[in-house]
């Protein structure tokens, strides 16, 4: 049969015309009984056609014609198993194994065929028989691990993977990936099994990766670290992989172990300067993100001393040094660095200036914050100048600067925050209002308790009555802040929401306050009362913009839609 005929079979198969493809493959096999391509094609197409029985005579003829051909033996074996003729399958497998006593293939084919037929226990038995027959304790470890996993025996899977890694270290990512899916209940048992006694370096790495993925970074590092104690290219590679895996998580612990891995990687990497310096700079940033400034400084000093470090690593390090100074509260030192350090790029310098200004604001030092960004005409600079003007009580200036900054300064959260503040300021009929600025500064400094008091005092200076000239809006902000604090402050919040709902008239603050009221009650497990408020809101303010939100809250409280 010419080659183009079987090519036509492949085309038909690809087009889903299995009947016609089967005809081509059968015709090919009649002319050439050992044509493996045709036999495999026939195996593929007869299965979905539910005509697998027709494969058997073809497979038998092929195996008889070429008895030493392993691929043909494999087809015959698979066919018997798929047709549920276990004795014939066994006979083929054992003849094959007898003919090739050192070969894993007979047992692997046999087990895979059984597994395809979902006979997991039988497949497992075959692999264990094969392991004994071959006399290799590590043989079929990966297959046995997968079978254990499929049957829910996660500890068995972990044991097999650990054994298999000793023969095939490159399988570490596959082992970690397979075991990572273990259910919560099995994870601790797997971790204990892999870390018991004196585990091999590869087993330690496997356990470390798993623990990292399961959200236990510190324990992961403790298990992993001894496996890279001896310098080698292999250890460096493992460290780099561990650091990359840790970067997928944003907890301080994960950042810290990422930093530790990077710093160790820098020590092991064979090329000082380039990769090592960059790794140290990355490690420093991770230490800073984790809040460990001392460790960050120690790493950065090594970069600074490394004359062979490339320029980008040096720049990264210099920036990290200033960030560490700012985050550590050494603002004057940071300011001096900013002014004098010529190795900082212009972009880094601009970003650090904003960071320094924010740190100044947090300390209440508005003058020096202002001077840090006074000449910055970027949208980020204008936005920050707006906040500084606001904290000084210059409401009109603040509004102008926020408008000038537009929606693209900072991230989406910052843009939303500015828009919300603009909406609040539009309710307050004053160009200048020092008390409000002071209250908002307290809020920015994280002093929520005093901010609540200051906002209430500021509201007290505004007119009462329906509409209220911004008074209910300030009380609403105070209530929102208080609602996030302790139980006593939550009582204050409830009183504030009550006051707004009963005094704010038809304005937007009343329904917004009632929504916050209901949310707070829901958080305090007072669901029935929360639902009463939500119903009152929906019925009393049908035109309010918060009604759709209230309806969703009501549905959630009733359990009519998912909580997520």
């Amino acid at each position, binding site marked *: 049969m010419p080659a183009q005929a079987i090519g036509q079979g492949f085309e038909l198969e690809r087009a889903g015309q299995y009947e016609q493809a089967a005809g081509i493959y059968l015709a090919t096999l009649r002319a050439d009984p050992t044509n493996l391509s045709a036999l495999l094609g026939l195996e593929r197409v007869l299965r*979905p056609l539910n005509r697998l029985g027709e494969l058997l005579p073809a497979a038998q003829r092929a195996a008889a014609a070429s008895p030493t051909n392993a691929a043909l033996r494999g087809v015959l074996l698979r066919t018997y198993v798929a047709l549920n003729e276990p004795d014939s399958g066994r006979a083929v497998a054992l003849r094959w194994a007898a003919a090739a006593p050192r070969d894993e293939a007979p047992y692997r084919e046999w087990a895979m065929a059984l597994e395809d037929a*979902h006979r997991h226990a039988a497949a497992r038995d075959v692999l264990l028989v094969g392991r004994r027959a071959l006399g290799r304790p590590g043989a079929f470890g990966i297959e046995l691990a997968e079978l254990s996993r*499929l049957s829910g025996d996660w500890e068995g899977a972990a044991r097999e993977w650990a054994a298999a890694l000793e023969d095939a270290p490159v399988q570490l990512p596959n082992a970690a990936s397979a075991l990572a899916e273990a259910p919560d209940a099995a994870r601790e048992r797997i971790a204990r099994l892999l870390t018991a006694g004196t585990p091999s370096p590869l087993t330690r790495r496997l356990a470390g990766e798993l623990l990292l993925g399961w959200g236990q970074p510190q324990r992961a590092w403790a298990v992993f670290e001894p496996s890279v104690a001896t310098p080698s290219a292999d250890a460096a590679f493992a460290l780099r992989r561990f650091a990359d895996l840790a970067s997928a998580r944003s907890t301080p612990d994960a950042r810290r172990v990422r930093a530790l891995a990077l710093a160790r990687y820098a020590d092991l990497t064979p090329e000082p300067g380039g990769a090592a310096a960059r790794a140290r700079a990355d490690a420093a940033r991770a230490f800073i993100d984790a809040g460990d400034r001392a460790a960050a400084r120690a790493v950065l000093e090594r970069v600074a001393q490394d004359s062979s470090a490339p320029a980008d690593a040096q720049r990264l390090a210099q920036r990290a040094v200033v960030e560490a100074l700012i985050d550590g509260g050494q603002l004057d030192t940071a300011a001096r660095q900013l002014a004098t350090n010529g190795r900082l790029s212009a972009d880094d310098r601009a970003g650090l200036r904003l960071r320094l200004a924010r740190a100044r604001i947090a300390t209440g030092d508005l003058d020096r914050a202002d001077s840090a960004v006074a000449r910055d005409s970027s949208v980020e600079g204008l936005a920050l100048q707006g906040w500084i003007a606001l904290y000084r009580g210059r409401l009109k200036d603040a509004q102008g600067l926020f408008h000038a900054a537009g929606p693209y300064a900072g991230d989406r959260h910052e843009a939303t925050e500015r828009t919300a503040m603009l909406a609040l300021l539009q309710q307050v009929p004053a160009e200048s209002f020092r008390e409000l600025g002071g209250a908002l500064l307290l809020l920015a400094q994280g002093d929520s308790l005093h901010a609540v008091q200051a906002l209430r005092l500021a509201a007290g200076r505004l007119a009462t009555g329906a509409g209220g000239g911004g008074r209910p809006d300030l009380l609403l902000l105070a209530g929102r802040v208080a609602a996030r604090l302790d139980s006593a402050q939550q009582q204050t919040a409830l009183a504030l929401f009550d006051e707004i709902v009963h005094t704010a008239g038809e304005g937007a603050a009343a329904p917004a306050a009632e929504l916050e009221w209901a949310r707070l009650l829901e958080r305090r497990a007072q669901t029935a009362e929360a639902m009463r408020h939500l119903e009152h809101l929906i019925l009393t303010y049908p035109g309010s913009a918060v009604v759709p939100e209230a*309806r969703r809250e*009501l*549905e959630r409280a009733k*359990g*009519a*839609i998912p909580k*997520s």
Partner: protein
Amino acid sequence: MKRRNFLKQLSGYVATGLSGDIAALLAPYRSSPLASLLVPMDDAQSDHLKAYGVTYHVVQAGIKAEWLLNYRGGSFLLPDGPAIRRDAALAGVSVEPVEESRVTAIRGEIEASNMDAVPLEKAPKVAVYVPPNAPPWDDAVTMALQYAGIPFDKVWDFEVLGGKLPGYDWLHLHHEDFTGQYSKFYLIYAGQPWLAEMVRFNADAAKQLGAATVPALKKAVARHIRDYVGNGGFLFAMCTATETIDLALAAERVDIAAAFADGTPMDPEADAKLDWSKTLAFTGAHIEPSPQIASFSDIDGHQVNAPARRQPLGAFKLFNFSAKIDPVPTLLVQNHRQVIPDFYGLTTSFLRSRLKPSDVVLADEEGAPWVKYINGNHGKGTWTFFGGHDPEDQQHQIGDPPTDLSLHPHSPGYRLILNNVLFPAAKKRELKT
């Protein structure tokens, strides 16, 4: 109370047996007897799904409502009153107050067109067949009922075999595999804890209920459900339940379950031994003989989990019936959309060639060999089958996040489900043909 009973009593029906809370609502519901509220179900409606809940609550309170078939998308006419307005406002359902003169004009329009007004007189008592440990978010009907605020009880094998079904007017089935093969999920999900739990749960139930195997248990459950319909119950089924309940009924005396389900292979002559006189909707289908293929039979046109046979999704079109002559199918297809995007389920659709001649096709895909939505009678009762899993999740996969119906308040697919819930509330009239 089942359909035959409440139909007998409709003429003399009074709102006896209402709970104290509901009875307390009667006064405000009836405070304005002359005016009415129209619940439009065309594009003017702000929440089509909750409109069914508002109407259900009115009927539940013992107040007569009307379903205006084909009038503005199948609107409801309710008596005006503060309690109803309140319910509607809280649910975000649009209502239009209409004076008596306007109601008269509407009735005139209905009389002159392919429309009809069907009284809704009794809130049906609803049961959903679902394992006790099933999450509420994996069943389109449960979600629809919860979202619309329509109360229901959960029943499972213990309740069905314990004779509890006659206490309900309406029974819903969803993705239960009545062949007892766990939906053949092991082909894809072997080793998953939830599957192991499903197997354990069903095996325990079979043991406790004295069934030799899970397939035997499910066959017994299927027969009880068929008897419930035969005695006047309403059955609504979706997804796998549609196909597998008929397979289980047809296979009363033959093993159609693979060895993994009951320890013995399927009877190789199963096809020939199936008895289609026992089934509700289908006839002449061929059982899928291979345990390796995630399909039950050739009833389903789409075969979503059998890659070589899988068919792409299209859209299905609701049939237009004569409202005055065929009120039941008309009622079941009330919608503000006539063409609806299709959605997969383990059973997505039904091959035309496998339908019994007495089946009424309610929706199909034009030019395709399958239909989507069918209805028929069995004994004194009625069954309705709707293919697919979740009308707003076309490619639903196990583990997908739950559908939040507050994001789909106008879902035409979910409307079809809720049509069925109110169907048993409709007063039966004699056909004019």
